């Protein structure tokens, strides 16, 4: 037991599902309250602003569909990250893996001589492999050379971003684009269709949901999933049980990065229909997906819903810019606040907090 100001903290051995849900929701609500201060700072009434955003986002099907559109890459990246996080592999590199997928898809779309019916499936396949292999690099670095995974995955994001910049300014710069740093437009057979009246490339959306189910099954019911959970929860026990770390981490990252790669395919084939500057293609989906996976607490099915929530935030950002005249960067502020509160509220999961009764003896600093 520990005492903190007027509070008493008691350790909680394994928090219940309800506690996890309650604490997570509490953190999000608290973050939104903090964000209200930002609205004040801009001289706007926060409650009216929230109401206006709510009306704007949920007002019509086309505007609500923007939530879905934004959620698609978040679902794919987020589900992939839940897998990596379950293995305690800190993949901060979904952004770069997404871009790798986008590059591979562009290559197939523009330069590979294949039968037209094969083009889209091949784009998805190559995008998956590109994202996955890009992610296998830090996995091998960690297993073989003990290179910190956070650093290596993060740094590879910049490497891939500059590769994209180089491609669109250099060898892949489209002759038809009159000097803009874009590749040529994808042929029609390399473009994904939209749900009518929206920009929702539903093929990728469906893929995301199916893969979320797949990853959930993989974790719960397969030998690989079991080994991932053991290696993540207790590497010593995994060594003791003879689990092959190289294989497990390479596979985890192949899948994790591959899913991010698919998100990249979706963005270039479903939205932009060309390769262009990395900041246009991704808008930081790979980073937001970290929060998506964290909020889902490593559960791939929950990640679908948390991805939708962050899709909502992105869509809300559009409205804030247009209807309230606030800078789009405010989305980043919101995300930061939410992540900050989530981590801050974490203590409530491992400790039960109560008020200290008066007159009770102080019970020492070292609880055990």
């Amino acid at each position, binding site marked *: *037991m520990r005492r903190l100001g007027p509070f008493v903290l*008691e*350790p909680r*051995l*394994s928090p219940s599902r309800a506690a996890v849900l309650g604490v997570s929701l509490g953190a999000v609500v608290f973050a939104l309250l903090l964000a209200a201060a930002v609205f004040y700072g801009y001289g706007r009434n926060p409650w009216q602003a929230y109401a206006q955003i709510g009306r704007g986002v949920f007002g019509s099907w086309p505007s609500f569909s923007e939530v879905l559109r934004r959620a698609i890459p978040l679902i794919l990246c987020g589900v992939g990250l839940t897998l990596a996080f379950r293995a305690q592999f800190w993949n901060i590199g979904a952004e770069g893996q997404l871009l790798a997928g986008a590059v591979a898809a562009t290559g197939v779309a523009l330069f590979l001589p294949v039968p037209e019916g094969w083009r889209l499936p091949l784009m998805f396949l190559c995008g998956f492999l590109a994202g996955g292999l890009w992610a296998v690099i830090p996995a091998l670095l960690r297993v073989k050379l003990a290179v910190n995974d956070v650093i290596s995955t993060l740094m590879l994001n910049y490497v891939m971003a500059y590769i994209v910049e180089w491609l669109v300014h250099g060898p892949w710069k489209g002759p038809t684009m009159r000097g803009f740093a874009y590749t040529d437009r994808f042929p029609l057979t390399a473009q994904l269709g939209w749900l009518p009246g929206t920009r929702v490339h539903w093929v990728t959306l469906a893929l995301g949901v199916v893969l979320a189910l797949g990853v959930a099954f993989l974790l719960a*019911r*397969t*030998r*690989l*999933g*079991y*080994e991932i*959970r*053991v290696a993540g*929860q*207790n590497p*010593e*026990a995994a*060594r*003791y*049980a*003879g*689990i*092959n770390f190289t294989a497990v981490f390479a596979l985890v990252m192949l899948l994790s990065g591959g899913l991010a790669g698919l998100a990249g395919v979706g963005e270039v084939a479903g939205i932009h229909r060309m390769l262009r500057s990395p900041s246009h293609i991704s808008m930081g989906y790979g980073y937001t997906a970290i929060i998506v996976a964290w909020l889902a607490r490593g559960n791939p099915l929950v990640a679908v819903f948390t991805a939708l929530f962050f899709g909502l935030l992105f869509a809300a950002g559009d409205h804030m810019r247009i209807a309230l005249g606030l800078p789009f960067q405010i989305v980043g502020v919101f995300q930061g606040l939410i992540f900050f509160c989530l981590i801050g509220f974490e203590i409530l999961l491992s400790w039960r907090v109560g008020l200290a009764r008066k007159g009770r*003896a*102080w*019970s*020492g600093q*070292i*609880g*055990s």
Partner: protein
Amino acid sequence: MVGRLHAPTPLPSRPALVLLKDITKRFPGVVANDRVTFELRPGEVHALLGENGAGKTTLMNILYGLYRPDSGEIWVKGRRADIRSPRDAIRWGIGMVHQHFKLVLPHTVAENVALGLAGTPFWAPARAVAQKIRELSQRYGLPVDPDRRVWELSAGEQQRVEILKALIRGAEVLILDEPTSVLTPQEAQELFKVLSRMKEDGHGIIFISHKLDEVLSVADRITVMRRGRVVGTVLAQETNKTELARMMVGREVVFRLTKSTCQPGEAALRVQDLYARNDRGLWALKGVSFHVCRGEILGIAGVAGNGQRELVEVLTGLRRAERGKILLLGREVTNRSPRLLSDLGCAHVPEERIRMGIVPALPVEENLILKRHHRPPFCWRGLLRPRAIRSFAHRAVEEYAILTPSLRTPAKLLSGGNIQRLILARELSGRPAVVIAAHPTYGLDVGATEQIRQLLLRQREEGAAVLLVSEDLEEILELSDRIAVMFRGEIMGIVSAGEASLEEIGLMMAGERRSPVRSEGT
């Protein structure tokens, strides 16, 4: 014989050195100390006896200022003491030697003693205390060189440094927490001599232990604790082992396990001239050779840190052998993977059961299939088969009497004894040919210890070759058919349990080689 359950009250003329009065301390879910009263007189060794979890260490941590009691009073030399921190405790003349030493390994002995010592000069504090160290070590027979670096010292020498630290700080009361767990029998005898000299000087010593024999030989009075309460205080001269054990456990305890005579079969595990390094790259095993036959238990005795851990790791595929050979059922398996070794029938009960033996967050049933999760019936074409897993877990929980609320309960919520039973259930249910058990009963209560030992004996009777590594000599003597003693990475000798004397084993633990050298093995 029934001992007096309450010692006479102290004479009013000479107040007790320490009086703990009605101490109560609660932790979430348990009462660690329930109205405990304990008294230490000048010039006595007062043993605090009890099983793990009986509340001995909690009580001493309260006296040393590491915990604050929920209620109760502490009196030192007739004055009410308010001890809020170890610093306060030292000011009151109380010193503590923890079970795990609190020394700065790269520093010298003198530097360690000077650390945090009041009144040392700012410049060269170590030099100032070196003289004092020599004085005190002469007086009490605690030979130690103030200029040696602590990491070079043996565990016994490090313990002396801890005692000196307390003495230099003016401790009149010395608390020793399980002091003999790191010592050879001879070193323990040395320690007892030191304690008697300190006694003569009027010091009071609190001796925490769960070993009956040593408590009887060293203590003047013995206070027995069980489940947070004092069962009674008895004079050492007026009691015996049986009575103490009954007080400790709360029922009669049988000291001898029934053990059939050993009928060794062919050698299931053969180790030849094995060399391996420890984590720091130094040689931990230097030419170790032995064999274990089916139907026998080979005990590996030795003071902790003489290569036992590395030996177990090499034998289970967790550490590389630099030289030498390991043969499992006649097949060479040197430096093969842990998975292959386990598939070939080599079970491993690891030393650190929570850190290595289980996955704490995973449910009991999934912990029970660890190591066999990749084979039928638990796994088929890469898919887990929940029904097979569940029915196996059901049987294992029943057969090995694992107390768990459900099969889905995370393993970390089980008690130590149940975790160990879980590990044994997993390791033994595959009918292994070789069982490697490292400290299998460490930290378990008497009941669980008894069961675990029975399980190991049953393995032996069913024809498994059992390698038992333990620092508990009593356990080694009780279970083993032959005993190998390790010292600094070598085997000093192998004796059969029938003809082994405690003294001979003790000498080997201290590095005396038995002749003829290495008659066994090759």
